[in-house]
């Protein structure tokens, strides 16, 4: 198309040329994937837009037509309900704190494991476990660990640390939100750790050595030499993590079910869809989420597409 190099122009003309056969093979090989993505990702997203402007209930779904009467009522309802704005604030707090915590801990981990020691390979692999472990198992164990009756955390807290009474970590404001943020940190810091470790390995040692020879202390070397080199990676990581945490459903749904002040928008979308069967309102809220996401992805492109981290 127009993006192809000008030099290729003369070859374009004839059918049956090598160039034409190549294009045909390319299209044939890529088309199954494109069709699948169009049918299962792109079309559904477009359909969400349509659904958001319809008054559609799950129980009436089978009789309803594809294109019902269009209305903006869903948006009026969504924006008019205080629960939505509360959920939006919760989502922002959750995503912001979760991102900062996981990238921060990932940085600390990458720095601590930077120099080789006996067993580093094993420790490194172990640190990645929370990230690869199934989310359902992880949330279940955390739930039991934090259980006020027989969970180990409260057992140690009351028995050893001298807490007056067990803390209901997942069922009370504002502890529940703090707990899901700590869980997010536990689960996602390996991602930042992995990227930052790779970036640290690529950083030339000569710069830091030179600074050290010039008398810079370790913290000064970190502050003025290492950190500036990591900054682009940290920025991309923060953005990526923010996008994913902002839309995260599994963790909060499984830990608290959205109770005790932890209702984020994605859990609200699910709730409207499945529990209330209000497809229109669920779509409208998903759409709001998409718009925020679109802005973030645009920022990501402008900012980091060249880094090819993703």
């Amino acid at each position, binding site marked *: 198309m127009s993006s192809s190099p000008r030099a290729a122009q003369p070859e374009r003309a004839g059918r049956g040329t090598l160039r034409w056969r190549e294009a045909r093979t390319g299209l044939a090989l890529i088309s199954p994937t494109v069709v699948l993505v169009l049918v299962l990702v792109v079309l559904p997203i477009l359909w969400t837009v349509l659904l958001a402007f319809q008054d559609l209930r799950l129980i009436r779904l089978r009789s309803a037509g594809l294109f019902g009467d269009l209305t903006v009522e869903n948006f009026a309802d969504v924006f008019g309900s205080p629960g939505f704005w509360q959920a939006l604030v919760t989502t922002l707090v959750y995503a912001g704190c979760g991102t900062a915590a996981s990238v921060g801990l990932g940085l600390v981990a990458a720095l601590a494991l930077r120099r080789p020691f006996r067993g580093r390979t094993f420790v490194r692999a172990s640190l990645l476990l929370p990230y690869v472990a199934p989310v359902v198992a992880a949330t279940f*164990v955390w739930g039991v660990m934090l259980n006020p009756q027989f969970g180990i955390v409260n057992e140690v807290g009351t028995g050893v640390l001298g807490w007056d009474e067990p803390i209901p970590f997942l069922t009370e404001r504002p502890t529940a939100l703090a707990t899901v943020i700590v869980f997010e940190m536990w689960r996602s810091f390996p991602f930042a750790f992995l990227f930052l470790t790779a970036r640290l390995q690529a950083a030339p040692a000569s710069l830091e050595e030179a600074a050290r020879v010039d008398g810079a202390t370790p913290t000064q070397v970190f502050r*003025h030499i290492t950190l500036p080199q990591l900054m682009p990676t940290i920025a991309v990581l923060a953005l990526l993590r923010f996008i994913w945490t902002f839309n995260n459903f599994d963790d909060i749904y499984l830990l608290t079910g959205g109770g005790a002040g932890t209702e984020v928008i994605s859990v609200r979308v699910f709730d409207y869809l499945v529990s209330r069967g209000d497809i229109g309102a669920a779509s409208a809220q998903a759409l709001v989420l998409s718009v925020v996401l679109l802005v973030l992805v645009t920022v990501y492109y402008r900012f980091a597409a060249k880094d090819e981290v*993703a």
Partner: protein
Amino acid sequence: MTRMVTAPAETPAAAADTRPSRAPTGRGWSRTTVETRVLGVLRWVVIVGLALFTLFPFYYMVLLSLRDLSSLLQDPGRLWPALSELTADTYRDVLAPTASGGQGFLRFMLNSGLVALGTVAVTLVFAVLGSYAIARLRFPGRRRVSVLFLAVYLFPSILLAVPLFVFFTRLGLRGALAPLVLVYVSQTIAVAIYTLRNYFQTVPASIEEAAAVDGATRLTVMRRITLPLAMPAILSNALFVFMIAWNEFLFALLFLVEVRPRWTVSLGLSQLAGSIEIPTTVLMAGSVILTLPIVVLFFATERLLTGGLTAGAEKG
């Protein structure tokens, strides 16, 4: 930078330093020593702390799965099981079919395995063909396709939940495993294509051209030359696609929740977790069963995977 510039100004104050060879850096030397010592200790504190923080939940999982419920309630703070209370009954309970009083996790494992392997197979076929095309062949719209796939990769599954749920409900396909496989493929294909494309680009085209000159067709070239060379990348792709599909929760919940015989392990554990009748220790055995295949796979192939993982990140 400003702090670095001011550093030399401090050196006269340290002129009393007795070590002549260190004189230019003066007081900075002692600060360096202090910082190095402190950081040296802190480093080990951080390493040990992090290892405990990440590994303890997994240890606790295994520990509770081996303990008896009544002894757990009596002594919840115990961090290593007494030999007398060790039991494997929890595993028997959780694996046995519901007909004989168990929780039917064996059935769930079968479902999870089918879905995950199906996803791996379909994703790989699509991804190998697609990524080869993007890496090697010039065709109209090639760049746009790459952008589309990157967008899909960044697109979170919760936003697809509404339309897909409505769509599959309408078609009456909820409760079947095959549509779920297709949804998983659509979620993993973008990452798979992206990493495989990067790999294909590192394989020199001249090898393929040489074969083509010798009269091999493009398919023969792919099968005999490109695929064997790309095997490591294909394998690591297979592994992380398997992990994503085995771990997935949201779509399994949306599509399968009403049909218990079709539950995956993730879905089964999440659905039974709220139940009061099933002992926590039995469910803990269930979560070991859910986690173990992933951990084993991960440690067996860690080196192969870490490269792929950074690209094959989870979907939020």
